[in-house]
């Protein structure tokens, strides 16, 4: 397809509802030929795998990390590399890595050499840490209680060797969400971070009536903490019921909740989405709060280390973080990580009862 960007754009020419181009346009010939007819694959090194078709054809994928936030300069560089070694074919993964799709085996090594030379981080395939699914953070979102890209950066720096070389018992999926809207899969990740608030929204009574709808605002509150304040043509918040989730702010700009000193990061662990072995699992609260300490959030990194190292040390091969914790039990999880168990860890919302230990099955840890 020859792409055109005319100097003068006639907006009336715009076609609507055409949808995306057909995916076939972007598939390398070897994939077109063997589409749906793959036999197996082999992971040759942490950043290289080969898929073998029933026909005997092969395609090599070289994976490199991406910060997801990419400049056009970098994208052009990627396009150039792909052209040089892959006939221009590459893709992104569902976790934002870049995969160079090589049809000619002889080009694999030169490609990897050039990537290494250009300081691309090769890896992420197999039982290891891959890229971090994340969100906008302070870069683009009005709702963010923490930055997202920075957390990704500091965590990936810390565990870089588990992307490029070392193995973990099974894949470790990290995720970051900058607020409790949780744009991503934080609620089902091995180790994840979510930006939280700890103070009541501040009600801007003046602007409420212009900017916000009463019923929507009330309905947004998971705990029904919001009631009308007819006198002020605004709302009241029942401080006892508010759990600082910020959903009211999502629907009503007159309820700002961000607070530099009290916002921060919670760490949740043990979620997964695949159906292998155990059914998909939610992440559960590990650390209720760590402060926002830009630029490198050392507390978050340190706490993660404790969890990660305990997992590496304790899990059996193929156990995901959540499976490991289920096996050893939460009392042991808190014991081996040294993280404190606090009132915040005990659920007190809709499904609270289902999380209580209705059994005497206990392991003694003290």
């Amino acid at each position: 397809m020859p792409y055109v960007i005319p100097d003068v754009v006639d907006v009336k020419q715009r076609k609507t509802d055409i949808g995306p181009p057909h995916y076939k346009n972007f598939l390398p010939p070897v994939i077109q030929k063997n589409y749906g007819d793959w036999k197996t694959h082999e992971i040759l090194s942490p950043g290289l795998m080969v898929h073998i078709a029933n026909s005997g054809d092969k395609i090599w994928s070289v994976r490199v990390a991406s910060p997801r936030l990419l400049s056009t300069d970098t994208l052009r560089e990627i396009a150039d590399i792909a052209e040089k070694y892959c006939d221009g074919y590459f893709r992104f993964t569902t976790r934002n890595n870049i995969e160079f799709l090589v049809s000619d085996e002889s080009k694999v090594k030169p490609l990897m050499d050039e990537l290494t030379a250009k300081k691309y981080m090769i890896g992420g395939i197999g039982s290891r840490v891959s890229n971090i699914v994340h969100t906008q953070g302070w870069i683009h979102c009005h709702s963010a209680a923490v930055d997202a890209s920075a957390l990704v950066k500091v965590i990936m720096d810390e565990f870089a060797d588990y992307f490029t070389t070392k193995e973990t018992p099974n894949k470790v999926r990290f995720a970051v969400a900058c607020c409790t809207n949780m744009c991503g899969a934080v609620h089902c990740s091995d180790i994840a971070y979510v930006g939280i608030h700890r103070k009541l929204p501040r009600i801007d009574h003046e602007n409420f009536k212009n900017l916000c709808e009463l019923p929507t605002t009330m309905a947004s509150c998971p705990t029904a903490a919001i009631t009308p304040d007819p006198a002020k043509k605004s709302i009241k918040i029942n401080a006892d019921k508010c759990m600082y989730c910020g959903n009211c702010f999502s629907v009503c700009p007159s309820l700002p909740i961000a607070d530099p000193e009290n916002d921060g990061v919670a760490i949740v662990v043990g979620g997964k989405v695949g159906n292998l072995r155990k059914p998909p699992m939610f992440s559960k609260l590990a650390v209720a709060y760590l402060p926002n300490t830009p630029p490198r959030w050392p507390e978050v990194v340190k706490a993660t280390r404790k969890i990660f190292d305990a997992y590496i040390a304790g899990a059996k091969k193929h156990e995901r973080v959540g499976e490991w914790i289920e096996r050893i039990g939460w009392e042991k999880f808190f014991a081996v990580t040294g993280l404190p168990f606090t009132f915040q860890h005990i659920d007190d919302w809709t499904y609270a009862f289902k999380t209580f230990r209705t059994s005497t099955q206990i392991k003694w840890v003290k």
Partner: protein
Amino acid sequence: MTKKYDTPLLDELEKGPFPSFVTEMKKAAAKSEMAADELGLLEKSFRDKVTYWKHGGIVGVRGYGGGVIGRYSQLADQFPGVAHFHTVRVNQPSGLFYTSETMRFFCDLWDRYGSGLTNFHGSTGDIILLGTVTENLEPLATVLSMNGFDLGGSGSAMRTPSCCVGPARCEWSMIDTLDITYDLTQEFQDELHRPQFPYKFKIKTVGCPVDCNASIARADLSIIGTWKGPIAIDQDKVKDFAKKGVNIQEEIVNFCPGKCITWDGNNLAINNSDCLHCMHCIAKLPGALKPTPPFGAVMLIGAKAPFVIGATLSWVIVPFMEMKPPYEEIKTLIRNMWDWWNEYGKNRERIGELIIRRGMREFLEVCGLEPTPEMVREPRNDPFWFWKEEDLEKKPWEEFLK
């Protein structure tokens, strides 16, 4: 020359092995005022530990109700380049495949109309073009369409469907994830571009229960490939794995949730009638085991983030559906559920929340689906439930106790 800001805090994030988003921003900042001011603004956020974006703001292109996220800085005075800083969501190609040519097109396009900053990709799957001004939206959309691209979804609409790499490069894909995604996206262009639902509706398709697109965690409708035939076993390959040091008993047999595998050191046997189709044995012995037809998909409904009722995972509504073009069965199902949701859903109520509020029975009846045990982990425990007048007349026990 664009403006320059001191960014001592952000500079710290150029250190370390992982590619730096700050470096990317600096690259863009060198060419774009917008990107430069974005960088300055972000440094200020880092200093003050707070976001400086204003709440929402509706912008868009003619004829569409979504595809653009309006964004304005609170500090437009200090950082005029980000006074407007809208996001454009472009519908990605199924499977996230690109060519260099296409990528260069996006670069040219975005250097011309935007900040030069992008996300490949947004969490929903869109190409995210980060940072442009309202005036640029119409020409941008026009150029996109001239080149075969279209905007993705936002707001209370069907959102851009996405999928795993599937049959394009994976031996386990039991359905054509790319084609299903493409086909449904085309079929529902109107619902994608013109918000008309109570809230957002996401569809994600994956080729097998491994779920490499996290569809069960973040799609209102999760379409997950599966199989009904026995698992085919290449015993030699299993033995090869054993020789190469895989402990078949510990790594495979003991982890099987169906407890249906045995291994005597020579022969691997699977009692397929107890298999839960979890993919563990298949995935951990690649090439040695494989699913056999019939192939189809499990349909699951209702995953979403925590608001308002708590995070949900999708749950089974059709244990097995054949997935052949033109995919009429699934399309009809989707239309039926949308009709019901449009009628009964409250503003900002996801379809899963509505089902939980009104009960599975109504949902299943509307969709013409029979209740089956596969829909539940376990039946209810408390002895309270509803009867319809018509149920009272029936005497099903005369049948099942015969």
